């Protein structure tokens, strides 16, 4: 199922000119505020009509301004999860959830509904009123409501941005289950590297209404070193190779290296993505002893890139993976770091806490 998108749109001073394609799985639209992510999603959902463009899903045209075709939002069958839950205050949770099912026809039976409710952990909320739910519960109900309308595609517009860290951590595992258990393409808008790193299979990087890069999460997010300050780093994809039953610490195996991460309800063999922030990576020229960090990874410097403000981004090849470390120019000079020099990258396990 391919979604192909080609849009040109002007809104005040802002101009949007993008073209990309999305396959099954989670495609993230990633970029800073004002880069056009939400506008693209609203155009896809049929909530804005662009100046020009063409959108097709599995060959089925939804928008074609040349042919003056624009399928209205209610006939696109795209589920839409907004930043705010937007639950109907006059309906109960159950009525909110079944609202879209009226229009979806008789697709998806009772079992399907039970599965979705169970997956989102909202079965016990059915008889409540939206006003009595917590922020996290509301957002889960709104995700369930979108899913139960039997969409062909799910559009999610920063569904976690209005929630605090604890609520985010509460919902993220449910989103991972959605991705892994439902055969539904998802377009996920976010400006958080860690969220995208954790969920997305493909990433479309946007800036100022243009597509900057398209590719796998590992390729695109790992190369953001220059682009985004605090969250710059590497995104590695691996599998859980060992679990310590006593401490709960998990060892994730990557290509030619491994990392120990904090407990996070993982199971052996599970495929996971880990975001290693560049500012949390230390560099040593000799293997340090007597240090608390659990991850000491040998590697070789492959690239030195100067970043503004006396800071250097080091790319370190460890096995077949690349880690990024952000250190000062002073340290680079003192340790005489040059391309090709063998070093150890040191990462505290705590720094790898999953969002």
């Amino acid at each position, binding site marked *: 199922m391919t979604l192909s998108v080609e849009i040109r749109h002007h809104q005040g001073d802002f101009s949007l000119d993008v073209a990309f394609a999305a396959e099954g799985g989670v495609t993230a639209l990633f970029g800073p505020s004002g880069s056009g992510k939400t506008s693209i999603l609203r155009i896809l*959902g*049929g*909530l804005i009509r662009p100046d020009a463009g063409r959108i097709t899903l599995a060959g089925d045209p939804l928008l074609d301004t040349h042919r003056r075709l624009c399928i*209205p*939002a*209610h*006939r*696109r*069958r*795209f*589920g*839409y999860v*907004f930043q*705010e839950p*937007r639950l*109907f*205050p*006059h309906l109960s949770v159950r009525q909110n959830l079944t*609202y*879209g099912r*009226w*229009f*979806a026809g008789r697709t998806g039976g009772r079992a399907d509904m039970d599965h979705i409710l169970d997956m989102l952990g909202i079965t016990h909320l059915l008889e409540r*009123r*939206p*006003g*009595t739910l917590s922020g996290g519960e509301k957002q889960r109900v709104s995700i369930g*409501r*979108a899913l139960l*309308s039997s969409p062909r595609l799910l559009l999610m517009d920063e569904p976690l941005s209005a929630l605090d860290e604890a609520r985010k951590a509460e919902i993220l595992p449910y989103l991972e289950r959605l991705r892994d258990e439902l055969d539904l393409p998802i377009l996920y808008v976010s400006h958080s590297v860690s969220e995208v790193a954790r969920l997305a299979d493909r990433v479309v990087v946007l800036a100022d209404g243009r597509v900057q890069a398209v590719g796998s999460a590992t390729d695109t997010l790992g190369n953001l070193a220059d682009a985004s300050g605090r969250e710059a780093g590497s995104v590695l994809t691996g599998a859980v190779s060992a679990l310590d039953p006593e401490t709960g610490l998990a060892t994730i195996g990557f290509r030619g290296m491994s990392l120990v991460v904090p407990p996070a309800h993982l199971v052996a063999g599970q495929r996971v993505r880990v975001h290693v922030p560049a500012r949390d990576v230390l560099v040593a020229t000799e293997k340090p002893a007597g240090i608390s960090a659990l991850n000491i990874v040998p590697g070789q410097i492959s690239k030195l890139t100067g970043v503004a403000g006396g800071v250097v981004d080091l790319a370190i090849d460890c096995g077949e993976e690349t880690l990024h470390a952000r250190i000062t120019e002073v340290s680079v000079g003192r340790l005489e770091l040059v391309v090709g020099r063998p070093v150890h990258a040191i990462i505290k396990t705590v720094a790898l806490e999953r969002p």
Partner: protein
Amino acid sequence: MNAWTLSAEEWTAIELSLRVALVATLASLPFGVLIAYVLARGRFWGKSLLNGLVHLPLILPPVVTGYILLILFGRRGPIGAFLDQSLGIVLSFRWTGAALACAVMGFPLMVRSIRLSIEAVDQKLEEAAGTLGASPLFVFLTVTLPLILPGVIAGMILAFAKAMGEFGATITFVSNIPGETQTLSAAIYTFTQVPGGDAGALRLTLIAIAISMTALLVSEWLARLVAKRVQP
């Protein structure tokens, strides 16, 4: 006959007033909702003109409104003649004409109340309903309408109260015919014009107060009931 017993004519006036007010309120409701929606959401040329037209009966002297109705809906008026010849409907000097006059007089109050509640509806909810597959009409029926219900009820009560008290436009348009167009207000007015009519005027005044109070209490109760359902 006891001073507190109502005569048959007085009963007729009360019954007629209630019927006229009820019909006026219910018949103007669909138009009220439609015009309120158009004024709240529409963007078109002449919107201020439509708004002014709707509010005109509020500002004009009621006698003027009644006279305009007589010119337009009288048997020889452009609309009245058409209704008479093609549909056989006669409004002038009939109780239906009184209902029309009351509806016109109460219309601005009804539209105002409904319009304010439509403007208060969060359009993001309607957008969400659309993405779930609901057509615009269905969104209106299942999301907008339930959310504006308190405003609709308030508007209906206001229009009903206005219709119960309407005098000037009604008497100008359909006159003061006992049993056909003599409403409560007109009956009280008639009593005050004849010697010894004070007792009758007082009886009907008390009835008018009772009806108005009941309508007000019922509306408060309904509004509270609905608000509890609509608010989280």
